[in-house]
């Protein structure tokens, strides 16, 4: 059992995402939010979504951006 656990940890550590992969993920996340913002702006301009909801998406965007940027910095340090 103990040997199995050690093996598992080794395998998982080996498969863990590299710094480069993490950075790529984070920048993908940022560009995803760029597109989201554009989509929300168009929808709001069309009157398809209420201003309150657009505001909620922007708040979510800000939070997600902050997290992704922190990840980018961390990846750069590594």
């Amino acid at each position, binding site marked *: 059992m103990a040997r199995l656990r050690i093996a598992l940890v080794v395998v998982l550590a080996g498969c863990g995402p590299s710094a480069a992969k993490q950075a790529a*993920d984070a920048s993908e996340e940022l560009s995803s939010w760029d597109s989201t913002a554009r989509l929300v702006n168009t929808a709001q301009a069309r*009157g398809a979504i209420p201003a309150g909801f657009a505001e909620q998406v922007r708040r979510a965007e800000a939070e997600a951006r902050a997290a992704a940027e922190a990840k980018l910095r961390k990846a750069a340090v590594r």
Partner: protein
Amino acid sequence: MSKLLEIALGIVTGIGGFLEAGSLATAAQAGATFGFQLAWAIGLGIICIAFLIEMAGRFAAVSRHTLPDAMRERFGIRFFLVPLVAVGLVSFLVLASEIGGVCLALQFASGIGFQWWALPVAALVWLFLWKGTFGMVEKGASLLGLVTLAFVVGAFRLDPPVGQVAARLLPSLPQQDSAKYWFMAVSIIGASVSPYLFYFYSAGAVEDGWDVSYLGINRLVAGLGMTFGGVVAIAVLVCAAMVLHPLGIQVSRYEQIPLILVTPLGRTGFVLFIASLAIACFGAALEIALQLSYLAAQGFGWRWGENLRPREAARFTLVYTVCLPLAGLVIVTGIDPLKLTVFSMALTALSLPVTVVPLLVLMNDPTYLGERTNGWLSNAAVLAVGFVACVVALVAIPLQLMGS
């Protein structure tokens, strides 16, 4: 009630009751990230759940036993504890996810943060169960759930390449990001094959007093209801694939999901999305909370029945009375409901062998089913999906946890 009406009602229940937080979130994420490519996972999940629902109904109609009751008497308490704990734990997490779904719908509509809604929503679900009857919970929620057909309308409005979607019903290997791909695949399968679905269905068949004359209805309802229900989930995937995928938008927050219906249907789409999310998740929360009560009561021999007055089935009532506020509290903590949902679905996939193999042992036991034991196809199909999903989940979940 005429049989034809019952079949129709059963299929409607299947359609209206299919979509819930898990299938909605996983299909939207998959469509956004991988386009149509993961449609096969929904298809596979539907085949598996249709077989399981048919089995649960057949078992109830022929043996007059509910599943937990039969598992306890057939396997003894120690072995029964394994599926009991697995199904209970997974169902509880899914319950929290559904409450989260309702709360988000309310947040989108009102602007008040979702955490604030968690306890009121849990209380409202509780009130419906406290006052309601089984028929109301089962049929009422599903009829209202037909609003989720909005996704099918939205998908057609977007004019998707039907041939391409159909081609993706066959599994294919990912070109990139395989860790994410397989994690999403198992989450989708877990969302379709939630054990609460067939446990609830079996309890319902016993509550409604099914006998062998219902076997034909059961087969039709399981097959057609789940297939049409699955169409709704595929429609969600198509909407996300058409709206979000070309823009490179990945669904990392719930707030992005309404856009898949706003783009084809405008303001109506926004309203329909909120209604769909709220009703589908509320209906699922009712069913799951009730199923947790059934599970405990039938496993331990307590008096049970949603049609009894609460004081006539006190411990049965106690289970949902305790579980609902606890599940509400999970959401109050402010945990990301989308992450919670998707993770619960992956865990469901992981637990499939434990939840499905005991069921298959029962389904092959002539002491319960006489001549009507399972055919080779149902055994093989369910086992194949269950074990493959579990093995993939075993690899994909740790990878996903490390990635985020």
